């Protein structure tokens, strides 16, 4: 029996009141619900406040570079398909610095879970606009207000027919726990964009702001209806839908590779005869 204690409890470097605490708790609870052992799990993160999260639970961890967690996770998953791989990082990390890897991961449909702590701001570097910061929002780096339109990760993911596209909110931890559990269980690339108040630097998208707007998608909502999902992904402002926005069963990356058969590469025995055959083909 895996229990919450298996994932430990650590002092964090986060600000009191930060939404990250609740996300961390939901992640742990989801793993307990799935009865996944720390040893089976690999957390990969980038750099930022969100990216520190894997240091605060017990698991295998690779905390890499800002923006580069998805390719690291992809390499690790291909090398050992037996690992359950979870990528956890911020909106800046995944949609800013690492935007191109986000697109590539969706195209690959590699079997991993991407948890984006989306506080709509660069937290660790003290409050510059992130790709999801609202247009017009003023920061010290954008004193005349953000001039770009925000990135809508869900719309792009649905447009690209990502396998699992969901939104959660740190202020609704039970709902979030369920969502994370489903995402981890999903075969293929699963995105959970998690709205997360940053009490220190985002004075617009506060906990109250989110609470007022967030609602759970109704039971009748059909996440396999792409056109509906597209529309739902665009909903933002007065009302913000939470839940699984879109889901499908695209073939998973690696299923294409006969050489990746749920067996770690490290366990593959050398085939010297084949190697000799290859060498002789140069004769």
């Amino acid at each position: 029996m895996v229990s919450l204690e298996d994932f430990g409890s650590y002092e964090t470097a986060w600000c009191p009141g930060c939404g990250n605490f609740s996300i961390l708790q939901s992640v742990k609870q989801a793993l307990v619900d799935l009865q996944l052992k720390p040893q089976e799990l690999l957390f990969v993160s980038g750099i930022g406040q969100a990216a520190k999260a894997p240091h605060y639970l017990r698991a295998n961890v690779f905390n890499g570079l800002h923006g580069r967690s998805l390719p690291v996770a992809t390499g690790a998953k291909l090398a050992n398909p037996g690992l359950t791989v979870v990528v956890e990082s911020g909106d800046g990390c995944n949609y800013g610095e690492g935007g191109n890897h986000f697109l590539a991961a969706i195209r690959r449909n590699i079997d991993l879970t991407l948890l984006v702590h989306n506080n709509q701001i660069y937290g660790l570097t003290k409050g510059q606009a992130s790709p999801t910061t609202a247009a017009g929002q003023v920061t010290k780096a954008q004193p005349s207000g953000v001039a770009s339109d925000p990135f809508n990760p869900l719309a792009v993911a649905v447009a690209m027919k990502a396998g699992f596209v969901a939104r959660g909110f740190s202020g609704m931890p039970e709902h979030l726990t369920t969502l994370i559990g489903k995402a981890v269980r999903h075969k293929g690339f699963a995105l959970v964009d998690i709205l997360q108040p940053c009490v220190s630097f985002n004075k617009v998208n506060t906990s109250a702001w989110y609470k007022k707007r967030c609602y759970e998608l109704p039971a009748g909502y059909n996440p396999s209806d792409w056109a509906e999902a597209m529309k739902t992904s665009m909903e933002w402002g007065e009302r913000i839908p939470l839940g699984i926005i879109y889901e499908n069963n695209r073939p998973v990356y690696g299923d294409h590779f006969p050489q990746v058969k749920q067996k770690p590469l490290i366990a593959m025995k050398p085939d010297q005869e084949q190697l000799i055959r290859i060498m002789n083909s140069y004769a």
Partner: protein
Amino acid sequence: MTDPGGLNILIGGEAGQGLVTIGQLLAKALVRSGYFIVVTQGYQSRIRGGHNTFSIRTGPRELSTPREAVDLLIALDRETISLHQGDLHSGGLIITDLSWGGERSDFVGVPFKELGPVKLNNTLALGVAGALIGLPQDVLLNVLSGFFGKKNPSVLEENRQALTKAFQWTGNKAPVFPKLPRVSDPGKRVMMNGNEAIALGALSAGLKFFSFYPMTPATSIALSLAAQAESLGVIVEQAENEIGAVNMAIGASFAGAPSMVATSGGGFALMVEGVSLSAMTETPLVIVVAQRPGPATGLPTRTEQADLDFILHAGHGEFPRAIFTPGTIEECFYLTRQAFALAESFQGPVFILTDQFLADSYRAVSSFPIEDLPWVGPVSDPPNISFPYQRYALTEEGLSPRLIPGMTDHLVVADSDEHTEDGHLTEDLAVRKKMVDKRMTKMEGLLREASMPEYRGEPNPDVLLMTWGSTKGAVLEAAAELNKQGKRTGTLSFSQVWPLVADHFSSILEGAKEVVAVEGNAQGQFARLIRRETGFPISRRVLRYDGLPITPEYILNSLKA
């Protein structure tokens, strides 16, 4: 033939005329007949048109470098004649279309139109050349079958007939040309270029994961590996860009797969942050950089040796690395193997620095004894690791026992931040200092294992030619000629340029009357590095940076000047 080693054949024409095809076929026929070869490919950054060359230097004894003077010029277009006739030795011949031939006695004017359709011109030219130099027709026909056989039997038949016609025509109509001396025992050799040897070396060493983004002249490493990936259970993954490639390889290596990336300077520029990550997380990584002339896009299909300083210092922060610089096809194979072993044992980034010339240079090499060569790779479950596992345990050698996530009951935590022994991020400055010392201590192991440069010649020569990487062959042959001319010449070739152990070579430098650095760049980067490491100044330099490889002639001419 005034080439001391043999015969120099140059095929010239436009991209799309099939000159690489007949070049490869001719080269393969030569190797199968027991000759040695050195191929130099000159091509442009386009798919059709322009002016390309495929030159084969060949002979019965081992060869290590191309030469510039041409004995047999195969001109598939007129431009080839005007561009290269000046390189022709006296006694040399130009195989070309009858109608372009004029009256010159050194022309072998082939009536291509009479002998077949245009698309077979290249095979016809191959036949004429083969017949002229005395290659057995059946060897060439076999090589043709190997190449076309798979695709389409009717295409093969056309080509066989064209070849046969060309042999007949040559026997009847062509001028005589000195035949290559027969080789009694053709040996058991394979034909391989530098990139193929790197790919095979990597596979033989235990490569399990390769990620890349296409970039000339490194791409053929990826293609060679991709062709074998499925049969060997290796993953070859084209990434979204070079940043993705290097980070994927690090992820795969962390998860236990010996991993490699390959690119050229501009692509490597995007991997620089990843190099630093490999060092900080102590994740083994082999990085191949196949050099081409820069800066920026530069000359994408030509050669240069100008990225030495860049590779040596790439990455923010301080950490040890090793850089191998193969000079032959055999070194491409064996140093790649060594790179894997070293990356695994020292847990960090190891480079193989090659260049377009060597990457594309086919040569005849003895088969490698694959059956006797060990594989490397992490042990999936080493004994005697106590709980809790500390990925960065401090040890005397700076090396910590490495575990692979998911393979044991331990948890493996790696971090790009400064970290404690257990891999978690820290801002403790005393720990910081210890961790820097730990990482830098690994340099000692690298120094202990550093390869000696190769010295050839009598002690205390009048002239010492010092070089590194692919220029080795040209230097050896230039030295041989200087010795013949009575100038006592030695050579010092580095197949590993970092780390350097001054004791390995200082006395050789000091013992020479004059030292000349021979390098394919504009600044004499390696000569500068030698001074930094030993204080020894080398002011005489033979440098080349026009995109072509350094040849013996180039060295001899420069020394005369």
